[in-house]
C-alpha cells in the first residue's frame, strides 16, 4: 500500500498542497478545509506538512463513539461517514500527530482520505517534498543506499572504484 512520504529538506512552505486538497474535496480554496496542514516553523526556517499517516494501530478509529471512522481496504485511508460523524472531536483528541481537525462550518471532522488513491496534494507538490509511494519500496531504496555506503570502504580496500555506484 502506498503512503504519502515526506522529505522536509524539500518543503518550501508554499502550501500548494493545502490549496489542492481544499479544491479537490470542496471545489474552493482555503487552508481551514484542507486535510493537510503545513506548520511553518518560521524562526527555524522549516516547514512541516502534517497529515494522516494511516497508522497500523489507528487510535482514532476505535475512539469514535458513533462508529463513523473506518479504514479503506484498498488504499488504507481513514474514512469517515459524513452522516455518522457527530463532530464530538474525540478522534481529534486521540490522534497523536494532530492530523485531524473540525470543519469550520459543517461540524464534521476532516482527515486525509488519500483522494481515493491519487492524492491531489502530491500532484500539486512541485519539489517532491511529499510523494505517494509504497513504504516497502522506500525502505528497500534506503537499505540499498545504506548497503552501498557501508560497502564503500571495503570495496576501496579491494581496489574497486565505487564512484559509479555512489548516489
Amino acid at each position, binding site marked *: 500500500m502506498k503512503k504519502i512520504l515526506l522529505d522536509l529538506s524539500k518543503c518550501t512552505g508554499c*502550501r500548494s498542497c493545502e490549496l*489542492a486538497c*481544499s479544491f479537490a474535496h470542496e*471545489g474552493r480554496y482555503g487552508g481551514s478545509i484542507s486535510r493537510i496542514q503545513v*506548520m511553518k516553523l518560521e524562526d527555524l526556517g522549516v516547514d512541516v506538512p502534517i497529515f494522516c499517516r494511516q497508522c497500523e494501530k489507528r487510535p482514532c478509529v476505535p475512539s469514535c463513539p458513533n462508529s463513523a471512522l473506518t479504514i479503506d481496504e484498498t488504499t488504507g485511508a481513514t474514512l469517515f461517514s459524513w452522516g455518522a460523524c457527530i463532530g464530538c472531536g474525540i478522534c481529534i483528541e486521540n490522534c497523536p500527530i494532530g492530523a485531524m481537525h473540525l470543519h469550520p*462550518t459543517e461540524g464534521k471532522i476532516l482527515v486525509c482520505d488519500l483522494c481515493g488513491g491519487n492524492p491531489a496534494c502530491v500532484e500539486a507538490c*512541485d519539489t517532491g517534498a511529499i510523494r505517494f509511494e509504497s513504504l516497502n519500496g522506500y525502505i528497500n531504496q534506503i537499505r540499498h543506499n545504506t548497503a552501498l555506503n557501508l560497502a564503500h570502504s571495503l570495496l576501496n580496500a579491494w581496489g574497486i572504484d565505487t564512484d559509479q555506484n555512489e548516489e
Partner: protein
Amino acid sequence: MFGYAGTILRIDLTREKVIRVPLDKEFARKWVGGRGFNSAIMYREVPPGTDPMSPDNLLMFGVGPLNGTAFPCASRFTVTAKSPLTGIFGDSNAGGHFAPEMKYAGYDQIIISGKAPKPCYLLIQDEKVQILDAAHLWGQDIWETHRVIREDHNDQRIQVACIGPAGENGVKYAIVAANLTRVAGRAGMGTVMGAKNLKALAIRGSGTISVADPRRFHELAEAFKHKVLTHPGYERRAQLGTTQLVSALNNLGILPTRHFQEGVFEFADAVSGEALQRLYNVKQKACFACPVHCSRYYVIREGSNAGTRGEGPEYETQCGFSSRLGNSDLQFVLKQNNFVNKMGLDSIETSEVIGFAMECYEKGILTKEDVGGLDLTWGNKEAIETLMNWIVTRSGFGETLAHGVRRTAKLVGKGSEKYAFHTKGLALICGDPRGLKAFGLTYAIASRGADHLRAEPVFELTNDPELAEQRWGIREIADRLEFKGKGVLVNYTEEIATLTDILTICKNIGLSMGILEHKMAAEVYTATTGLNMTIEEITRTAQRIIHIERCFNAREGIRRTDDTLPARFLKEPLQKGATAGHVVELEPMLIEYYQLRGIDPETGIPAPSKLRELGLNEPARDMEGLSTAVSKS
C-alpha cells in the same frame, strides 16, 4: 462574490470603531484589487496637505481577487499611506502568507484611520475584530512580536504584519513585515503604523475563496505555471533568486559600488549569490502558492558568527550592505539582513543614508566629530553597525540619518545635497541607471519615488533586437545602453507592473520573467470573478491607477521638475567596466513617455482629457484647477 472576499474593513483607532462595508462590484471592477483599491481610496480620502504622521493619514492593506486561490505566485499584499519619508504617495508590497489569510478572514481591504491612545494591535479572526493592548509587544523586535502573538493566542497559523522598534521610534523609512522576513519595505509604511500606535495586525481566517469558472481558471493557472517552469531563467531563479544579480550587474558594470562612484566591485565574487549558495544556503523557501521558491534560508555554521540564521537576503539588502558601502564580508551582510528585518528598517534607504555619510566623510564634508567619533571609511563594519543601531534608536548622528537621505543632506548642508541619491525623497535602488537607461526613466517617473518596481523594464537587458523590432518597431529597445524607444518600453511595462500589483502577482515572475501580459490578466480576472473584463478594459484600469497616483502627487505640488535623477547619473559617466562612458539621457525618454502616457510635458500633470477617457472625471476637474494655477503663476 467570486474571487473577492466581499468586504472592506474600516477601523478607526481614535474612536475604536469597526465598520464592515460590502465590497461594491463597480468599485471592484474599476480598481481590481491590491494597489488599485488603495490608490483609489488615497485620492478620494487623503486630501492634499495631510500630515503623514497625523491621525488623518490612512493606512491601508489591499489584496486582490487571486489571493488565497491556487493561482501561482499571487501572494502579494500592498500597504499604502501618504509617505512620511517623501511627503507624497507611498505604498509598498510584500509576499508571504499574510495576504491569503486576510482573504480567508473575509476582507479585500483594511482601511485604518485615526490614532490609538496607546500602543495596540489588531486581532482579526473572521468577523471578530478586536483592538488589543500592545504594551507587552511595544519595544519588541519583529521576530519576537510574531512569536509572542502566536503564543498568546495559541495559534501558530495566525498571520502577522507588524513593525519593529524603528517604526515605533518614528524612523522615516520603517517597514511592515510579515512571516518574519516578507517585507513591505519602502516609503515608510511602518512609520505610519507606528504613528498610529499600531504594533501589528494579527489575522486568522476560516473562510474559503471560490472562483467563478473553475475549469477556465485551472487552464489559465496551469498555462501560467507552465510558462514559469519552462522559462530559461527558472532554474537560476529557483536556486539563487534575486541574489544572482550581484555578479550579473557587476559584469554589466552597474553594481553600485562605494555609493555609485563605481559600477564594478573588486570583491563581487565574495559577496555574490553564488557564494551565498555555496557557503550558507540550506533550503529554498517560497511565498504562498509559488513554484519558484526564490527565497532561501541560510545558516552560518562556523566562526565568530556561527548560529546566525535567517531568510533571504534579497539582492537589494545584499548589495546595499556590500558593494554599495564597500564591504566585502558576506557574513556581515547576513547579519545586517537579520538586523534590518528584526528592527524594521528599509535596507535600501538605510544603506543609502550610510553610503551618503561615507561619501561625505571621504570628501571631507563630514568629519569624525560630526559623526560621533566614528571612522566612516568605506567598508568599516563596526562603524556601519553602530550607525544602524543609532538610526533605530534615533540617537547621536543616527537622528540625522533617521529622516532619510533627502532630509539628511539638508541637515548636513555644505553642498552635500548632490550626494543624496533619491528621486522625490525615496532612495535609489541598487541598479546604476547609467547602464540601464529605461530603469533610469522608471526611477524618474515612479509615483513613489526612485524605484524600479513601478515599471521594471527588464526587456532592455534581453539583447533581442528582433523581438524589440517585432513588438515595437524599435530595435534599440533591447539594448540597455540605448535611450531610444525607452519611453515606449516603460509605457508598456508600467502597465504590466500595475497589472501584477492589482492582481497581486509577484513582479519577479509576472513582469521580470515576462509571464503576465494584458490578455492573460483580463482572462484570469474574468474566470476568477465572473465579472467580464476585456483586454481594453484592463488596459484602461492599469492606466487609471497610474494616473490617479500621479494626480495625487500633482495635488501635493509635484511637477515636471520632480521627475528627475540625481546629477551624478545625468552628468558623470562611469569610468570602468561594461558601462564606462555612459550617463542617463533622461530628457528625450521623458518626453517620449509623457506623450504616450497622456501627461502634459510642460507641467508633468496628467492631461484632463486623458483622465476623462479613463473615467476619472473628478480628478480631471482637479487637474484643470492645478493647470490653471500653474499657467497663472
